[in-house]
């Protein structure tokens, strides 16, 4: 008997051509359209850690909010979101958020300052005995039982991280979106937090790690999606981030890799385009060393290349 093809597990989340825009009134009645996310495509499978890496303003947090359906009401969303092979409609988002898709937020500001921490963790539980589950999870994350009775302002940075991860843990969600979970933290705490996220993936959950810290991402991620001006320019396996970046496909990923201190500290001139004046062609074209007239005319589509995905006419 021939074994069935060793296919990868089906994606739990499939984001295709996601665009998010906001209408804004500038002076008088002049309308401006801000496009923080343009044609973003990304998939994530159970048991894997996918890092979404980009500089600030690349639309990382909005991606998380779009998946959860908690964008501000004036946001316009196009594209398809599929969760476990079903369309992720606004109604499904309401049903799934918190129970099957959980967010690990950035900072202590995401906890109600006047509510005890334990109650806030328990409110994320959607089935079973919340009190028992909270005690077990606190024990697992080495949080003393009395921490449950504390208010957020009484927590240290490391305790806050563990409490925030606890909320995702207690929900039993199969997709966990960690939005910049290690901002400005001590390296031991960063390592510990990332370790917790890796453990969650080890239990068969899918973990989307949204971060600007490419080095942190490399330590636990399986694949890395590189965001530029709200679009995915490349999705590569962690193994491609090596040497001088020759295995990477997109010029921006290469530039990002080479900008790291240990890889030469090379600076690419220019900045991300302004959100209301996106270039008509490739979004990276204004800064790209490989730019040709083709690049200004049309936006490149994503295409598979060497086991990854790239959005560039010239990548080979």
């Amino acid at each position, binding site marked *: 008997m021939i074994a069935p093809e060793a296919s990868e597990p089906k994606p739990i989340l499939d984001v295709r051509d996601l665009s998010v825009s906001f209408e804004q009134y500038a002076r008088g009645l002049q309308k401006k359209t801000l496009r923080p996310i343009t044609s973003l495509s990304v998939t994530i499978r159970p048991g894997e850690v996918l890092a979404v890496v980009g500089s600030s303003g690349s639309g990382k947090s909005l991606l998380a909010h779009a998946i959860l359906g908690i964008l501000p009401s004036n946001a316009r969303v196009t594209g398809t979101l599929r969760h476990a092979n079903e369309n992720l409609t606004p109604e499904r988002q309401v049903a799934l958020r918190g129970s099957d898709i959980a967010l690990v937020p950035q900072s202590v500001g*995401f906890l109600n300052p006047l509510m005890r921490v334990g109650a806030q963790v328990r409110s994320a539980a959607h089935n079973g005995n919340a009190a028992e589950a909270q005690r077990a999870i606190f024990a697992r994350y080495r949080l003393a039982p009395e921490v449950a009775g504390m208010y957020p302002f009484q927590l240290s940075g490391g305790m806050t991280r563990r409490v925030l991860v606890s909320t995702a843990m207690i929900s039993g969600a199969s997709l966990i979106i960690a939005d910049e979970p290690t901002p400005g933290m001590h390296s031991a705490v960063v390592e510990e937090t990332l370790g917790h996220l890796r453990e969650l993936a080890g239990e068969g959950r899918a973990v989307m790690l949204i971060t600007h810290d490419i080095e942190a991402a490399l330590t636990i991620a399986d694949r890395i999606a590189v965001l530029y001006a709200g679009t995915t320019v490349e999705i590569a396996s962690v193994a491609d981030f090596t040497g001088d970046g020759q295995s990477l496909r997109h010029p921006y990923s290469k530039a990002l890799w080479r900008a790291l201190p240990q890889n030469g500290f090379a600076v690419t001139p220019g900045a991300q385009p302004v959100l209301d004046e996106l270039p008509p062609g490739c979004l990276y074209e204004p800064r790209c060393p490989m730019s040709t007239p083709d690049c200004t005319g049309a936006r490149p589509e994503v295409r598979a290349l060497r086991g990854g995905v790239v959005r560039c006419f010239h990548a080979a």
Partner: protein
Amino acid sequence: MRPEERVQIAAVLVFIARKSFRLGTLLVAVCVLSFWLVSHSPIDPVNAYVGADVMRVGPEQRAAIAAYWGLNDPPLQRLVNWGAAVLRGDWGTSMIFRQPVIDVISERFTASLALMGTAWVLSGVFGFALGIIAGARQGTWIDRCIKWYCLTLASTPTFWLGLLLLIVFAVWLGWAPVGLGVPAGVLSDEVTFGDRIRHLVLPAATLSILGVANVALHTRQKLVDVLASDYVLFARAKGESEFAILWKHGLRNVALPAVTLQFASLSELFGGSILAEQVFAYPGLGQATVQAGLRGDVPLLLGAVIFGAVFVFVGNLLADIIYRFVDPRIRWGGRYEQC
């Protein structure tokens, strides 16, 4: 005793000592300043005392009256005399009422308390409710209506609103009496509780309607801020319903500032009650204060001023205490810093 308990008790003692010192200095300053102002008042206390009989009172009688009230003594002597009366406990004798000031104030304040208490509770409850509705429905027509209503009220003078209510409800519709605290021409034994309530309605409504605006606008803004906060965003991400968010996160974080504000607004309530009582001829402390001022009744005026100062001080003190000892961040914040 655990060290943190000792720290906490020390903090409370420091708080009490500091507040007592503030109250003492405030009262001394208020006494001296009011006395100085009254002694430079253009009103001749003897004329004011005699009133309409001014033509029938001869110079000898005037001198006798002035001597009886001690009006010829130098100001400092009068201040000392008055201070002695305060320490004695009767706060001097009111020239208008011919009673110890302390009795006049306690009787008048009881009437005012009914008025201010009703207005305080009503404006607090309705203001908070309106603020919550407006904040939760931010940007909708209901929010705009409430905001418009509050901004209009916030710019309305108390006495004008009082007159308006009088014209509409007392004169045109005849639903409420035109003034006073009890019906005219009825023996005090025969005045019923219902009579008192009927006379209380319009002045209390005047004060409450105005008090609503402040609380409502503040509550609305605070709720808008809370609903835009990161922790409400996270609550949504955790799948909490909009109602649960409003209840658990909204009310919890809005209630404390609203209650604090309501206590701190006792000064406005006291000031408003003076105007409202004047318009409705309601026999409260505010009206007595106005009479004392107009007729040069120095002991009563000073008594009322001191009483008002203490009243407002207590309101602010309660606001301070609630803020300091109910909010866990302030209750325990200092302790953790010191440990």
